[in-house]
């Protein structure tokens, strides 16, 4: 009886997990295996391919490629940190200073931009910032500028766009974790002689660390893999690595090099996340659990 019950339970578990396995296998593992295979092929003659790591070699030998990658990684890290710095006070205010309706209202307000598609949102920025855009006209009207001001197509604009897109993914885990911080811990910190800075450093941040790390991982990955925002706001010179991958696959029909780039992106971003976890002394299970 108990034996059959146990096997029934196990069968249920297996049935429940099948969709998850299928999803992993069909949508993640299989394409990646295929990508891996494609990335190690080199075209010698039309329709004749050979096994080789030349595609990977090209990434390191051609400065444009790895510099673009480094630039993408550094800007993504910077965007992640800036998002954190901006989102933390917002999250603290929502989680700790507000009660009841105001709290849910502000939380919802963070969500509103996501009702619009990313494309439309980014065009919104373009309407504001382009040469003949709202801000340019406003500045001329006030008298800040003599002629039209172009505010698109530079790194600062890319940064603003990336941070704007990422805010929600930082605010949500931060609000959740700060909500779970017992107010009396903060009060005890003050009571024992701490000031605002030491209480933040010794009590609030250590408590919020898992939320900070999980928010940072999500934002970093989204930024690194973002395509629309850097390309639309940065124009031709955005030099974003995903744009390189797009070029290889779509413009140059060089699927082999594109696949190699894809793999490098996956590997290097994993390395950066791993380093971030090491530096913040967090484990992945702690962060996600």
């Amino acid at each position, binding site marked *: 009886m108990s034996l059959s019950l146990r096997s029934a339970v196990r069968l249920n578990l297996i049935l429940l997990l099948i969709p998850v396995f299928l999803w992993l296998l069909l949508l993640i593992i299989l394409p990646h295996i295929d990508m891996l295979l494609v990335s190690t092929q080199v075209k010698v003659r039309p329709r004749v391919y050979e096994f080789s790591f030349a595609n990977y070699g090209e990434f390191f030998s051609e400065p444009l490629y790895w510099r673009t990658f480094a630039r993408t990684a550094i800007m993504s890290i910077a965007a992640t940190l800036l998002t954190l710095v901006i989102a933390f006070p917002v999250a603290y205010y929502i989680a700790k200073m507000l009660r009841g309706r105001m709290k849910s209202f502000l939380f919802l307000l963070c969500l509103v931009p996501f009702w619009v598609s990313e494309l439309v949102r980014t065009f919104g920025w373009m309407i504001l910032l382009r040469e003949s855009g709202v801000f340019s006209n406003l500045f001329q009207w006030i008298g800040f500028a003599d002629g039209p001001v172009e505010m698109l197509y530079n790194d600062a604009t890319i940064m603003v766009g990336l941070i704007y897109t990422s805010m929600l993914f930082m605010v949500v885990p931060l609000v959740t974790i700060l909500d779970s911080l017992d107010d009396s811990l903060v*009060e*005890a910190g003050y009571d024992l*002689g701490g*000031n605002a800075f030491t209480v933040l450093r010794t009590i609030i941040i250590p408590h919020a660390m898992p939320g900070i790390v999980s928010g940072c991982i999500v934002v970093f990955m989204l930024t690194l893999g973002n395509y629309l925002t850097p390309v639309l706001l940065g124009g031709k010179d955005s030099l974003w690595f995903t744009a390189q991958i797009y070029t290889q696959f779509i413009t140059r029909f060089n699927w082999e090099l594109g696949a190699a780039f894809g793999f490098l992106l996956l590997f290097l971003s994993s390395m950066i996340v791993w380093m971030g976890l090491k530096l913040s002394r967090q484990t992945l299970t702690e962060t996600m659990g």
Partner: protein
Amino acid sequence: MTEQGPGGGHAPSYDLECRNLVCRFGDFVAVNDVSFGVPEGDFFSILGPSGCGKTTILRMMAGFLQPTSGDFLIKGKSVIDMPPNRRPINMVFQHLALFPMMTVAENIAYGLLRQGINRIDARKKVEDALERIGLPGSGEKKIKQLSGGQQQRVAIARCLVLEPAALLLDEPLGALDLKLREHMKVELKKMQDQFGTTFVYITHDQSEALVMSDHVAVMNQGRFEQIGTPQDLYYQPATAFVAGFVGDTNRWQGRVESVDRDTVKVITQDGVQLLATAAGGEALSQGSQVEIFVRPEAVVITLESERITSQDNRITGELISVLFNGANSRALIRDRHTGGELDVALPQTGEFSHLQRGQEVHLGWSLAHAKAFIQKESGG
């Protein structure tokens, strides 16, 4: 009601002094004109039912809440405008609020480091403190690895290493189980003696307050009803609320029939005539509605009615049950005439150990032990 400071008179040497503290939340008055002083080294308790404003007073003293009006002084100096981190008093929170991300030693060292003491001296003090609370060598443990009672002691040590002018404790035993609570009562008192610090202790448990305190303030609906030693409160309650809240008691309600100086003759709602002493300092007159309080141990119980003929009040009743508890055994007795129930302490001689259910017993008490208070409309 009575607002004489503990120890009588107005000695200027109070460690802590609250003057006419008021705290309003919107229209609701949580703390209503409370004044008291705590002498140095005193164990001062604030005792009151849930929601009467105890925590609110403590939070005003710690500096987390700005009073609507009134003043708070530490060693004679007003600190009402001082932020909590600068006030030389510390608080033990209701749920302790130990920092879970730090070790025991880091918790205790927290305040020391904030004072700018160097790490080596701080470590010495922490080890010293761990020794004193009986947890030597536990410094590297995480908070979660300690038992409830041990966490309690760490929370107190964390404050006491700072040598505060006073320690504020908000129902620190509330979260413990009964057995540990009994043990910690003694422990807390010992710790206070050892460190020689003034304690302001909040509780809704009257036995905690009576056992540990030098002085107790009884609080009800935002006001202090009485401040005094535990003995004062027990034997000379100033108000009906104090008489009913501190210690166990039997109570009757009735109307004053006649007054002869301090002695009143009262007809209870059940039509029994009782003699009592007017208490509470308010003038009683014929027709006043009063409440009479009689402690269980003031009632003499006997099987032969002639042994209590000298008592001012006499009742014949039958035994409902004996609540045996060693030296604190009680008998529950039903009044023959009115059906009212009385709680009576049994003498420790054991002569009543064979009482039977339904057996007839005679009860008597003197009028000195029966206190009559004017009945308030919304009395507790």
